[in-house]
């Protein structure tokens, strides 16, 4: 009995010692309790680039009608709206409007020092297309944006960007991983001028502008930036 008791005591001591060692060794690698926070945009704008005016022997700003489209409350507008009317004698001057719409959405990340992940969430809320002289809306809305970039300057009519990635076009709700972009903003590797969403057309080539009357536009809204973070590493964020 005594021998058995000693053997049991010995095993218990070893286990206790092992558990103490394991406990002490894993103190720094306990899984942290992560938090998720949805940020609302701190800024939104739609930029209009392209050309509007006349080509040829012209002495007027031309007569392309104004684009009737504009973003609604809490929305950005992405796509293009073309107009072309060829000149004919005695008016050898073509009227043209090639408007490219790019949307900018920015978020205030000042409360974060590091993140685990970030996702950009948004919805395509409306869309229209024009071809063959007819303008129609789509239900469900069609997403015409093809590219997600990060802004290289404060929002402007041209909305220049870099670090571009392709966007999914199936919707109407979208969840796009943007962890690397957000990390660059937080670390200061890239200034935070927000996201720029654009497509399907690139900027207009002034030397070869589209000469058609087509349009494809999507209105996007419900923007959220979903941040997953470790509160212990982000003392300024909600704990």
């Amino acid at each position, binding site marked *: 009995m005594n021998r058995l008791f000693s053997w049991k005591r010995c095993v218990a001591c070893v286990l206790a010692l092992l558990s103490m060692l394991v406990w002490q060794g894993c103190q720094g690698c306990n899984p942290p309790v992560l938090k998720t926070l949805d940020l609302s945009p701190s800024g939104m704008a739609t930029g209009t680039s392209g050309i509007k005016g006349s080509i040829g022997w*012209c002495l007027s700003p*031309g007569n392309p*009608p104004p684009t009737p*489209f504009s973003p*609604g409350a809490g929305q950005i507008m992405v796509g293009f709206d073309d107009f072309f009317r060829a000149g004919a004698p005695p008016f050898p001057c073509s009227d043209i409007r090639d408007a490219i719409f790019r949307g900018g959405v920015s978020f205030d990340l000042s409360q974060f020092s590091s993140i685990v992940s970030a996702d950009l969430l948004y919805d395509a809320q*409306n869309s229209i297309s024009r071809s063959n002289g007819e*303008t129609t*809306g789509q239900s469900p809305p069609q997403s015409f944006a093809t590219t997600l970039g990060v802004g290289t300057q404060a929002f402007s009519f041209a909305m220049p960007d870099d670090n571009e990635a392709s966007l999914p076009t199936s919707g109407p709700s979208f969840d796009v991983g943007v962890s690397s972009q957000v990390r660059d903003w937080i670390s200061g590797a890239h200034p935070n001028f927000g996201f720029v969403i654009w497509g399907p057309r690139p900027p207009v080539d002034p030397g070869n502008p589209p000469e058609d009357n087509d349009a494809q536009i999507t209105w996007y809204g419900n923007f959220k930036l979903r941040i997953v973070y470790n509160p212990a590493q982000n003392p300024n964020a909600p704990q």
Partner: protein
Amino acid sequence: MHLPRCSTTVLVLWVASAIAHATAPAKTPADLIRSLIAAAQQGDTDTFLSGLTASSRKAVTDSFARQASVQQAQQAFEQALDARFGKAAPILPLPTEDLKVTLSRLAGAEILQSKPGPAGSMLLRVKTSIKGPSGTITTREDSLIVRQEGGGWKLVLGSPAEKQPGAKSILETFTKKVQNGEFKDRVSAMVALDSALLGTVGKKKEVSK
């Protein structure tokens, strides 16, 4: 797409003042074309305008005035949308070109053919070089009309008359419709306006390149 109202006014006055500007009258249609191209390349809008007939210069003034009134009507439409459906997120507009920028695209011209036209005028077939902002040059052929006026050859230019009802009238009509609650949402109103504006320019799909 908004032409600032103040700059429009300035341009109208500028164009009007240029009417009084006079240069040596062109002795031939070829002299006129050369003078116009030189003025365009130098950004000399006064000299360019002085090479036009009086009615053409008036067409310029009318065109700028028409653009300004359309612009005001469009702003009223957008304000009506905001009042009805909520304040829109900001849109940063495309800068509108002025006369000097438009003219600066004329890089050269060569008369290919000339023949007599009605009432003593001449019809010119001109190959025009158009310069893009990136420096690329494209060419196109235009038919120009020139006639003698004030002791020299002048170019007849203008803008085609807008179909009626024009864009301003349509915008005003749709502003009232929005105010009267005739549209269920913002996009419906904009699509309806777009279809109406298409009608002001006829068959726009019949595009000739």
